[in-house]
């Protein structure tokens, strides 16, 4: 049964059948051959898989990300970041990281971030003498923060699949996100000092004032989202729709919107989020079959026999390895929904806090955005910088190391990483201090 399900799925992927349809077809085939349940389960699972209120945050956050680039909000945030960190040695590199962090606090999609930030910052860094490889790698690596700093598409899907609180998952991303951003800035500073570049923008209070004045409305969004969830005013879904309204209000104030553009933007966003969400529907069927045939339990038993359940460390080593490999070949959303039912079961058997496991998975999959052949941020940034994917991958090595350091910290120091959600949402989190 397992061979039929996984084997036909792998074959369909090799034949370039889209992943969502590959999952649907291999599951349907398995049900038909096994004959234990009627085929009507297929339609039923499509409905059950999508009939999930937290998933409504996916279209809204994606729409916001698209709208940010479309309405010039990204541009204003870059000006603001320039005023706060642009004067440090390696100015534009710090601006890139800072604006990526702010952007990440508004949008949950890394690809939109790589495109929005990269299209401005890569040419700007090139002009000031930064090596192209460094500029491309920095934009790609800092764009992964989009999925680490809340809100995050990966976290919404992970929480929805694992039955966790999206809000708690979001809050768990704050510390690792800041950690990655700070390490990227430290590294940028070293590169800039060594090459004697990027020291041309003196600090100016006037500039800071002026750029704050034009960008403060956008800066309120992350405060609204994170504050709203921290304070328990909003659920993640409500926060997402509030940011949609807010972005549209901003667009009207800045007079950057026509109804026609709004329509185009919405239609385009629908085409995009439906890709991930059809995978969610397909995975709902897939996960149901796995559960029906007790596959996760079987794999857990197999893990136990192999002696891998003995320590949480060995479980994490396997999880990180598996998601690193899978994340290089496919999009993070299908990767999560295909593997979460199994990984979640293994984690539970090993006594790992589900949020701890979730944040490690998300951090690992974020590295997958930077690894060939299917690393969206890598592909977008390399394209913007006009360099080959191979050269960009080489330039990314220091950033892989930074991300690995943070994954390691997340594995070994759950109390540090999960401090914020545990303090804020004590009733939701297992292992929280009373």
């Amino acid at each position, binding site marked *: 049964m397992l061979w039929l399900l996984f084997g036909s799925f792998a074959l*369909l*992927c*090799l*034949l*370039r*059948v*889209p*992943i*969502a*349809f*590959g999952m*649907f*077809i291999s599951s*349907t085939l398995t049900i038909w051959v096994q004959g234990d349940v009627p*085929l*009507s389960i*297929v*339609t*039923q699972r*499509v*409905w059950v898989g*999508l*009939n*999930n*209120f937290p*998933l*409504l945050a996916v*279209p*809204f956050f994606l729409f916001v990300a698209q709208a940010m680039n479309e309405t010039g909000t990204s541009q204003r945030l870059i000006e603001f970041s320039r005023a706060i960190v642009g004067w440090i040695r390696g100015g534009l590199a710090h601006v890139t990281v800072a604006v990526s962090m702010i952007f990440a606090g508004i949008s949950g999609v890394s*690809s939109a971030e790589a*495109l929005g930030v990269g299209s401005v910052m890569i040419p700007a860094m090139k002009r000031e003498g930064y090596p192209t490889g460094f500029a491309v790698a920095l934009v790609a690596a800092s764009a992964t923060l989009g999925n680490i700093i809340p809100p995050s598409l990966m976290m919404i899907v992970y929480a929805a699949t694992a039955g966790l609180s999206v809000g708690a998952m979001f809050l768990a991303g704050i510390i690792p996100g800041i950690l990655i951003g700070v390490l990227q800035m430290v590294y940028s500073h070293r590169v800039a000092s060594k090459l004697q570049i990027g020291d041309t923008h003196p600090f100016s209070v006037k500039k800071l004032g002026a750029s704050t004045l034009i960008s403060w409305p956008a800066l309120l969004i992350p405060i609204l989202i994170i504050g709203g969830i921290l304070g328990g005013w*909003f659920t993640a*879904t*409500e926060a997402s*729709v*509030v940011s*949609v*309204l807010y972005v549209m209000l901003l667009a009207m104030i800045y007079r950057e919107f026509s109804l026609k553009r709004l*329509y185009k933007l*919405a*239609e*385009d*966003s*629908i*085409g*995009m*989020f*439906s*890709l991930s*969400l*059809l*995978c969610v529907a397909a995975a709902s069927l897939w996960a149901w079959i796995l559960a029906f045939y007790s596959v996760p339990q079987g794999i857990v038993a197999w893990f136990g026999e192999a002696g891998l359940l003995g320590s949480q460390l060995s479980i994490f080593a396997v999880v990180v390895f598996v998601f690193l490999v899978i994340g290089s*070949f*496919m*999009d993070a959303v*299908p990767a999560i929904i295909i593997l979460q039912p199994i990984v979640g079961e293994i984690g539970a058997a090993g006594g790992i806090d589900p949020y701890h496991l979730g944040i490690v998975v998300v951090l690992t999959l974020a590295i997958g955005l930077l690894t060939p*052949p*299917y690393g*969206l941020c890598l592909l*977008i940034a390399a394209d913007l910088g006009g360099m080959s994917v191979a050269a960009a991958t080489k330039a990314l090595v220091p950033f892989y190391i930074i991300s690995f350091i943070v994954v390691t910290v997340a594995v070994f120091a759950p109390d540090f990483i999960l401090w914020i959600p545990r303090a804020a949402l004590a009733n939701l989190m297992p292992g929280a201090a009373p």
Partner: protein
Amino acid sequence: MPAPRGFLNKLVAVNGAIATVLFGALTVIVSLQVLTRFVLHMPFIWSEELARFLFFWVVLLGAAMSVKNRRHFVIDVTMGRVDTWSPTLRFGFSAIPHLCILAFAALLFVQGIGYTKIGLLRTATNSRLNMALVYAAIPTFAALTFIYALGNLLLDYRTHVRGRAPEPLEPPMAE
């Protein structure tokens, strides 16, 4: 915007327009839910349910659209080597995904009609909506997907085997 030419392009334009209007309605309803909870301290009992139903329709209409526009996630193991193959071989290889999607869409359509009929007998708890209206999104998605996949198959046949220039595609969308 010039009016789209050809049956398929017209269909996808209507498909997109309906999806976009429903997405607008979804945004309004979830906003109302937040607003009524904050301002009136009593959200409408039907809003959350209706939002889930609209979401279901929007996602499936959007997913069908993306079949036409060939945007669904694919794992590319060939790394562009296909381009060096002979036209017939290339068409054979590109036809496989279309045929798989066609087969699945046909099955889902039949199953979806059956499921919608069951829906006729059910009413949603809070909004009193007949569930057939909601479940009908599944056969609609299946039918649209079937038509689009068939269209793509014919288009590939014409470009690869008959060597004719492809029909003008939709302008590429930003990723």
